């Protein structure tokens, strides 16, 4: 095998050294870092874009939260206002109802009192009329003079 013929080793290694050095120094070194730079720049841009997108998302989320909070607050305020208005109205209605009931009670009492009075008066009138009639009837029929007091007493005894 020619591979194991040492005669060609020196030449092979020499030219390999020459060409590999050329490859590294004159080809790879001047070209590859350019590509590396571009790759790094691209990565930086992509990650920068991603960061910006992340930040924008955070901002959007914050706005969303603020909006939600505002909505919730407004809803709560509206609800409490409605509740307060309802309570006020109910209280006012109750108060007026109470007032009305009190007035009606008072009116009824007054009416009952006047009714009682009228009844008492009527009774008193009736008694005096009956006493008078009795006195006159006794005088005419029996010819006995009786006083109103006697009649009253007699009526009361019956």
């Amino acid at each position, binding site marked *: 095998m020619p591979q194991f013929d040492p005669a060609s080793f020196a*030449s092979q290694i020499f030219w390999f050294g020459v*060409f590999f050095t050329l490859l590294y120094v004159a*080809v790879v070194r001047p070209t590859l870092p350019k*590509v590396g730079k*571009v790759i790094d*720049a691209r990565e930086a841009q992509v990650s920068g874009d991603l960061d910006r997108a992340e930040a924008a998302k955070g901002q959007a989320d914050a706005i969303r939260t603020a909006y939600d909070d505002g909505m919730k607050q407004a809803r709560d305020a509206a609800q409490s206002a409605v509740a307060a208005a309802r309570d006020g109205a109910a209280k006012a209605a109750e108060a007026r109802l109470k007032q009305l009931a009190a007035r009606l009670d008072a009116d009824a009492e007054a009416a009952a009192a006047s009714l009682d009075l009228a009844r008492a008066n009527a009774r008193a009138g009736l008694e005096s009329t009956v006493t008078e009639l009795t006195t006159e009837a006794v005088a005419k029929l029996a010819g006995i003079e009786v006083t109103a007091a006697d009649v009253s007493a007699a009526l009361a005894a019956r």
Partner: protein
Amino acid sequence: MEQFKIETIAPLTVAGTDLSFTNSSLWMLISLISIAAFLFIGTARPQLVPGRMQAAVEYLYDFIRDMLRENVGKDGLRYAPLIFAVFVFVLACNLLGMVPFVHSFTPTSHIAVTFGLAMIVFTLVVIVGFARHGLHFFSLFLPEGTPIFVAPLVALIEFLSFLSRPFTLAIRLFANMTAGHVLMKVFGGFVVSLGAYNIALGAIPLVVNVALTALELLIAVVQAYVFALLASIYLNDAVNLH
């Protein structure tokens, strides 16, 4: 073995040593020119959104950088250009040696060249190891937790395995390229000898040879990858000491 024969193209003798420009040198030069064309065109105007050639260069470079990142870590990226050079050189020599009809020659099928490549890796490992760790680099030969009574033995074994690395690296590439090429030649010979006997019989080794060509192309790429991968694994020892 005619395909591996070194043929002098331009004789050159320096201080009694034969340094002739041979077909091996010629194909290394062709590899160099191909790589140069590929790299210079690919990086002529680097853009954020790459064109085809730039994308191809980037793909290869990213491949090497990923390999170094995985095997060595972030510190390994400094050596990406050198590992890249080794990788593309082996790849170009392997692949260009497969070109038919042009008397192509595979420089990497010769142990002198693969040994030169292996020595580049070995030298890099030693220099990086001593530069980063000084004499502490020798602790590479004594893995942590070794019982003291087997330490000398382990150190000896580790040291020998470390020294054998350039040889295994060189022989692996050379043997793969040589064996594959020999096999192709053998089956090519079968095509001729069996074909002379009966044309239909000659078709059988021809079909095999087509498949072997595909296999050999695969080996050309895989061996370049293996070479670069082992280089980065050895580099990991130097950078991180196990």
